[in-house]
């Protein structure tokens, strides 16, 4: 490093204290969290199992993977997609009124604050608890999964919707008012075009996430591929576990690629 650069770099604001504080805090947290976790190693049984799991994933049960009857992976994945899809649609529809009630620029401050608290309340209840509650309504099966997905989607979707609503360009509306547009025209041509693509993009993103989350609903009997996966694991049928996991990973990767493409098109606005 030559002298000129050295002097220039010396002029940079000294942030040593800042970084030292961060490091100390992080180290302290690291040590504290280590105390709570009982670190166990792989014992002999664990190593044997690990080998079996890898074997199952390398040599999956192909017949099971391509089985299109209601017991096979292909059908179960289809059911999982259906749960995630309907859950996302219902969730995003429910999120629209909620997000308007959350936006301080639309409703008064206290109302927005109360709605926000309400959404936090909805969001912290784990999805499995919702699953159990909805099974009381619908009985075990995919229907309970759809309702659970709808409720758990609301939190994130409405939070992202609010950001869009808050960032609306009000100039357009003022211009339309000055041109004598009616309220309907203002909503149709001033607000909807601004909201629609962002809302859609958020919804597609959430579908992506719901597909991933839908796999755990099976744990409480709310449909999808989760239950067969867990049964296969509990009974040590690793080649079936392998088949399910491979199907799941491929499905999620494909959906992710498609969703990324769609969303970047929506954002850039090109056809």
């Amino acid at each position, binding site marked *: 490093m030559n002298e000129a650069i050295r002097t220039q770099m010396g002029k940079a604001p000294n942030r040593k204290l800042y970084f030292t504080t961060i490091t100390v805090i992080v180290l302290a947290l690291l040590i504290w969290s280590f105390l709570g976790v009982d670190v166990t190693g792989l014992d002999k049984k664990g190593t044997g199992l690990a080998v079996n799991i890898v074997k199952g994933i390398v040599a999956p049960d192909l017949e099971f993977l391509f089985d299109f009857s209601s017991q096979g992976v292909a059908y179960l994945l289809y059911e999982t997609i259906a749960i995630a899809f309907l859950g996302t649609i219902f969730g995003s529809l429910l999120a629209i009124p909620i997000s308007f009630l959350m936006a301080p620029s639309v409703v008064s401050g206290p109302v927005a604050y109360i709605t926000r608290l309400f959404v936090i309340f909805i969001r912290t209840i784990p999805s499995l608890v919702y699953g159990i509650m*909805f099974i009381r309504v619908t009985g075990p099966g995919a229907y309970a999964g759809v309702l659970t997905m709808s409720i758990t989607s609301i939190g994130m979707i409405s939070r992202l919707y609010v950001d869009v609503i808050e960032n609306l360009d009000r100039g357009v509306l003022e211009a339309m008012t000055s041109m004598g547009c009616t309220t309907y025209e203002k909503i149709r041509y001033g607000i909807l075009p601004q909201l629609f693509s962002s809302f859609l993009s958020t919804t597609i993103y959430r579908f992506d996430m719901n597909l991933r989350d839908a796999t755990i609903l099976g744990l409480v009997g709310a449909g999808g591929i989760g239950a067969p996966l867990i049964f296969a694991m509990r009974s040590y049928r690793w080649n079936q576990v392998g088949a399910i996991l491979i199907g799941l*990973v491929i499905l999620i990767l494909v959906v992710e690629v498609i969703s990324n493409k769609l969303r970047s098109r929506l954002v850039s606005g090109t056809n």
Partner: protein
Amino acid sequence: MKETIYDKIFKPTTYTLENGKTVKQRASKTPLILILIFLAIYASFQATGVDLSLIFTRGSQFFVIILSMFPPNFGFISNIWAPLFDTIQMSLLGSLIGALFAIPLALLSSSNVIKNRLLNGFFKLFLSILRTLPTLVLALIFTFLFGLGTMAGTLAILIFSASYVGKLMYEHIENVDMGAFEAHESMGLSKVEAFRYAIVPEVLPTYLSVSLYAFEGNVRYAAILGYVGAGGIGLVLNERLGWRDYPSVGMVLLVLMVVVFIIERVSEYFRRKLS
């Protein structure tokens, strides 16, 4: 306008302008997309057996459990502290180590740092595959390997954090302006030094903020890991739900809500400071 197969099926409308020129407007895709979406909704209704009338007839059943959670059993709180701290420590340790693992993974995936397409592609795919595996499934696998307890949960969280932070970081690193890096290099700094002075300051705030965000989500997620025996407050939750001891479930959820709220506020404060 270039004619595509789409235009052959759905004829574009043609307008004649005042100066005699004709322009074509591509037929709107909206009706087609709407039909596809309605078909998908119909198929999903069939596959999942959703029957909306059931909500009106049996919807009140949903509130049975919620209402029986009130008032929460405040006496139960002494049984909550230990597993609650387990959960926080699990997600903290998993997030911290995961975020550390994310650094080499992100660097290996960034095409502007390691100029080897094969290596980049491999690590990008690796991160994607890790991210697709649901955390709960990972936790379940780890309970088989490491026994029931917090270790399994921590590892599951660790893997999720590493893949999540890793992905967001390589996207960020790839979009960093390399001009500063090249300028440093041309002034005679080594690659490592140039990286240290040009890239690190640019990327560090995002890294910290993304890691914090991952931690935030992990706390909420760690709460259910107990379901598969991976330690933490989920164990208590599962046990109480099994016994239909809903007032205690209500207490667990209440405490969880307060803790998640506090952690989110703190983390949001720091993330705002970082950006």
